[in-house]
């Protein structure tokens, strides 16, 4: 599990669902959760929360300006690649902290990823969990 720390800057609630905007370092992230400020105490503007997402949900892109539906993007430098038969683990250094990504070894080969290279790391809005 990747865990970053972010500050809640905006909460847009509709029914029982909230779209939460977070400032993590210099980058803005969005997540959608089935909670509202009435159901959990941590969902308040200016609150510092933990932002968690699974390594297998991290997407790697090679160019910087993707027209893509994923809003959470951060530029990263590949610090390490651990290649397995089917899956590979990438350790990424970003302005929001260290992120680990698990992608297929095929994908890593197709993208010709190598240590030291700059890539874009992306996480879907629906894949990010918040906790106190």
């Amino acid at each position, binding site marked *: 599990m990747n865990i970053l720390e972010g500050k809640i800057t905006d909460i847009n609630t509709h029914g029982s669902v909230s779209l939460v905007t977070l400032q993590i370092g210099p980058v803005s992230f969005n997540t959608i959760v089935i909670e509202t400020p009435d159901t959990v105490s941590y969902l308040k503007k200016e609150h510092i929360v933990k932002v968690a997402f*699974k*390594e297998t949900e991290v997407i790697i892109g090679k160019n910087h300006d993707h027209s893509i539906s994923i809003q959470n993007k951060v530029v990263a430098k590949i610090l390490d690649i651990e290649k*397995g038969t089917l899956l*590979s683990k990438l350790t990424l250094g970003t302005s929001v902290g260290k992120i680990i990504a698990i992608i297929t070894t095929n994908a890593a080969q197709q993208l010709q990823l190598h240590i030291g290279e700059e890539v874009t790391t992306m996480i879907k809005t629906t894949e990010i969990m918040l906790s106190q």
Partner: protein
Amino acid sequence: MIHITLQKELIAAHGTMLLDINIDIQRGSLVTLYGDSGAGKTSILRMISGLLAPDKGSITVNQKTWLDTEKRIHQKPQHRKVGYVFQDYGLFPNMTVKENLLYALEKGQSKNTVTELIDTIELGDLQDRKPEKLSGGQKQRVALARALVRTPEILMLDEPLSALDNTMRAKLQDYILKVHKQYNLTTILISHEISEVIKMSDQVFVIENGKIKKQGSPIEVFTTKQMSGKFQFSGEVVHIEKEDVIYIVTILIGTNFVKIVAEETEIGTIAIGDKVIVASKAFNPLLQKVH
């Protein structure tokens, strides 16, 4: 409402321990006392049933005073309407199932109570057998029925399921929940199993060294961090296997096994036998109607 305030110095493994608790229980609810052995859980049940006298305290059950040390009120165990089920059944070996139940009747109480319980707890086929001819789960069902014969105001279950295998355990849990609801009982359960506590109880009291460390709904108490993942279960790690750059962790949740992919840092210090929370976003699971 049941109010329980108890203080007693107990002999513990490392010298003496002061048990000091204050518990309010809503009528009709099922609450669990959760904690390590020697924390004082059984002593609490023994004091409620009157088998053990506290140094100080009071117990009021639906406006009736069972105990008030200041007013020197100390109702005898036989005058307290409690049903007690232990881990080791405590059935009379020389009596059949039905005789065990009939023996528990109060003077003048109708035998219909026993017939009804035999029906509810599905003991019909077993009623003429002696306890030695029964399995552990069956004996515990008889013990449960016997505890209900006098329609107790409080049903107390002291780790009644810990000697049973998982399937039998799940079945017994369902029987307990059934009678708890059907007879509108107020039930106090002692349990070590988080999954059992979550399935069974409205409220849990975590007891440590004779004190209440935490209380609340099981999910509030056992999820240490409030997480926004809505697909959340607690279970026990039964297997961890490394595959390539990931780990596959097998977790027993209730009677189901699930497999979770985890990364090395996520595994951390998690080992086989550990209790874990499995959480996912509500956005991921697929839902399909079963035909």
